[in-house]
């Protein structure tokens, strides 16, 4: 039913938007902004003069710590996690003139998932394994290397990382570039010189722990977490002192309250999450020790209340029959005191997670009117396919609606705050379940959305996939997967259906406003700008600019590899606005690697500007003035001697 309607809408939308192929949903909102109206399956453009455009949701963000308008100082640009740039030089009127201004290949080929940082005249990049850092001088022709640093992490981590030897980002603070190594160390470099200032060991890769997460700086704390939800790890989030690298606190997400940092100030909204040592008592005896609940998504921070928000991973093992119970605090979100790690509240998205849905996805901190009342919220697109709008001070769920197709849940129980589970979709060991939607990676993985305060919309890459699932009982063997899920994944709409889409979402009303279907899962982050343009990339390597209001595709450029990274927007020292994105397919996008059109791996940053102008444009014979050579990331000899 749903797919039929969508297919018709899609077909008619194609003829209206030309290259855009945008799909309009939610007719009421569309009329209000004067774009189009869906009638009996046909999308009709409204030719009336442009009315005053009004936010769909009324949502706003404080966007603390964003820094100067032209800079991009953290993965999400601000503490609220918006990925919104206030720059307007590039806008809907001229975005089609974007051309490549310059490129930088870091010589590594694992998935490129991080966002470049731009501080002053310098761009900071860190490669996936072996996690080489580069500082590029944006003021000179050719954007030469100022310094590079090769930390030589242990290769054992490559084979312990479930989903490619990636790094999801890096952080800046206190004059330092700070990032995780895949082998469980946190590294701080002098941002001016690239000199190593401290390196802190956090865990043991021999036991299957890796750290592909982006470090996050909140004031003088560096927040990091571990990965290994498939490896039977014990999940944690920790804060390091930014000056010394010393661990200030560490909170586990399974185990007794003392480990989880649950004390008298812990006030979850729902009754079933209240009680002593639930991180032990919602598990069979001792199973919590290898129960995962790791932390590898993006962190957000509310400086007013000094609270960080982080998700937790799936429970281990992935075979649910071996761990009856809710398995707290896996597949959940925590609000924690940034200074002490003490938990303020938590909310479990998927109790007794049976499909590896996780809860690690980011929370975006927005304030918006809901049912006539202004609420301070966090918005979270869960892998389980519900998009939640939650009161970030109390943990009360205000909105929970599916943003894509799913069939594991029959609805949301507003009284308990729990999703209702379809018993037919619960796996049993040795029995193959057909067509469970979404599969383990959800209908949206870790790829971060962007928020636009003008439209009040969130822009997010999503999936449209299902799986056939067979569970195999597993034993815990340190350093090997504690997993047991055998899966075949395929599009929800049939063999030749699209695997993904890029959508605009109204978080106040829990509705999709438009949708751009894509052949592959959309695993790119998004960035929105005050020029009313939203950028994202596709797994097959198209980098697109779309109109933030209508979803009309205004410009696309084919890159050398697929996009699973996070685009950014910045102002160069030459006062030109640039858009940058890495082309380097990998990560969970590899689940579709056998599909026609899947691109080769790559490791190139592409930087675009209007007409491709850059500091080398008016130089007759530009030359590279660099003090540092590139690293040799394959650790081969630098040359014949």
């Amino acid at each position, binding site marked *: 039913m749903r797919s039929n309607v969508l297919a018709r809408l899609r077909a008619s939308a194609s003829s209206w938007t030309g290259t855009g192929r945008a799909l309009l949903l939610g007719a009421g909102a569309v009329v209000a902004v004067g774009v189009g109206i869906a009638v009996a399956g046909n999308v009709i453009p409204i030719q009336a003069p442009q009315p005053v455009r009004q936010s769909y949701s009324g949502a706003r963000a404080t966007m603390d710590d964003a820094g100067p308008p032209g800079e991009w100082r953290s993965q999400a640009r601000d503490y609220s996690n918006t990925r919104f740039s206030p720059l307007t030089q590039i806008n809907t009127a001229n975005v089609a003139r974007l051309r490549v201004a310059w490129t930088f290949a870091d010589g590594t080929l694992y998935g490129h998932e991080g966002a470049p940082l731009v501080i002053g005249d310098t761009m900071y990049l860190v490669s996936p394994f072996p996690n080489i850092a580069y500082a590029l001088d944006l003021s000179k022709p050719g954007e030469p290397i100022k310094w590079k640093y090769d930390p030589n992490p242990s*290769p*054992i*981590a*490559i*084979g*312990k*990382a*479930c*989903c490619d030897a990636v790094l999801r980002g890096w952080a800046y603070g206190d004059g330092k570039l700070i990032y995780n190594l895949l082998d469980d160390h946190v590294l701080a470099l002098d941002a001016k010189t690239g000199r190593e200032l401290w390196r802190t060991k956090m865990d043991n890769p021999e036991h299957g722990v890796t750290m592909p997460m982006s470090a996050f700086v909140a004031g003088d704390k560096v927040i990091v977490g571990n*990965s290994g*939800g*498939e490896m039977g790890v014990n999940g944690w989030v920790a804060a390091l002192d930014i000056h010394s690298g010393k661990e200030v606190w560490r909170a586990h997400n399974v185990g007794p309250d003392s480990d989880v940092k649950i004390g008298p100030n812990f006030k979850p909204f729902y009754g079933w999450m209240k009680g002593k040592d639930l991180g032990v008592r919602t598990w069979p005896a001792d199973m919590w020790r290898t129960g995962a609940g790791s932390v*590898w998504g993006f962190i957000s921070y509310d400086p007013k209340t000094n609270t960080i928000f982080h998700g937790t*991973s799936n429970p281990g093992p992935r075979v649910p029959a071996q761990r009856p119970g809710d398995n707290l605090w896996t597949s959940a979100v925590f609000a924690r005191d940034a200074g002490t790690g003490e938990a303020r509240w938590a909310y479990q998205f998927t109790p007794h997670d049976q499909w*590896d849905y*996780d809860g690690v996805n980011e929370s975006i901190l927005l304030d918006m009117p809901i049912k006539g009342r202004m609420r301070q919220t966090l918005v979270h697109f869960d892998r389980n396919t519900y998009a939640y709008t939650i009161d970030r001070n109390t943990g009360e769920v205000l909105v929970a609606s599916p943003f894509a197709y799913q069939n594991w849940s029959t609805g949301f129980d507003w009284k308990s705050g729990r999703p209702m589970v379809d018993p037919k979709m619960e796996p049993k060991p040795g029995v193959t379940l057909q067509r469970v939607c979404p*599969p*383990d*990676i*959800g209908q949206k*993985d*870790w790829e971060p959305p962007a928020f636009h305060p003008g439209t009040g919309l969130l822009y997010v890459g999503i999936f449209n996939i299902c799986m056939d699932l067979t569970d*195999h009982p*597993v*034993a815990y*063997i340190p*350093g*090997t*997967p*504690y*997993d*047991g899920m*055998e*899966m*075949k*994944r395929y599009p929800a709409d049939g063999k030749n259906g699209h695997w993904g889409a890029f959508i605009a979402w109204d978080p106040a009303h829990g509705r999709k406003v438009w949708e751009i279907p894509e052949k592959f899962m959309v695993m790119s982050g998004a960035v929105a700008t005050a020029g009313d343009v939203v950028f994202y990339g596709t797994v097959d390597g198209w980098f697109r600019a779309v109109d933030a209001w209508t979803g009309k595709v205004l410009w696309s450029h084919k890159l050398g590899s697929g996009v699973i990274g996070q685009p950014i927007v910045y102002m160069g020292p030459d006062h030109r606005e640039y858009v940058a994105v890495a082309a380097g397919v990998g990560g*969970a996008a*590899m*689940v*579709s*690697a*056998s*599909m026609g059109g899947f691109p080769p791996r790559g490791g190139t940053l592409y930087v675009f500007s209007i007409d491709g102008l850059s500091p080398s444009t008016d130089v007759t014979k530009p030359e590279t003035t660099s003090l540092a050579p590139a690293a040799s990331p394959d650790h081969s000899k630098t040359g014949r*001697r």
Partner: protein
Amino acid sequence: MSPTGITVSIAAALLVGAAAAGWVARTSERPRGPAVVMARSEGAPGAVPVGDLAGAAVARLPADLPNPLSGDAGAIQEGRRLYVRLNCADCHGFEAKGAMGPDLTDTYWRYGGTPVQIYKSIYEGRPQGMPAWGHALPATSIWQLTAYVESLGGAFPAKDYHKGLQGDLSGAADRTAKKSGASSMEGQ
């Protein structure tokens, strides 16, 4: 750099690596000039430890030793059972076409594709995350696992050690392999 110099470097590198790994390449006792000369041709390990099966007196056997259980239906079945039971499937894929760990059905072998080389990879582990199962499994189980991997079609026959090394076997399995659209890459 002279050819002799190259020989020295290679031999030295092998010996250092071998010593670190707890086993020693079999080399000629008689030095030729300053070089330590390999008894076998370049790149070929002289011998590979094969665990308890060979007995304490014979800790190493030639690289071209066939798997005593190669092609044995019962051994392959038991190898498959161990492959799932020991979580190998979660790393290399339930269809062994690669996930966190490499594809075991194709003809690309980072550490060699003959039975003894596969045995050695399982026994000792490998630097990019492969655990060393020699501590935990009896030799028979490792040979059974090896037999299962051989049955997937990409392994090199023991006698074709040099053909595999020289690239002459590449593509053979790929040409005959059934195409599979499934991928078992984990989703974290």
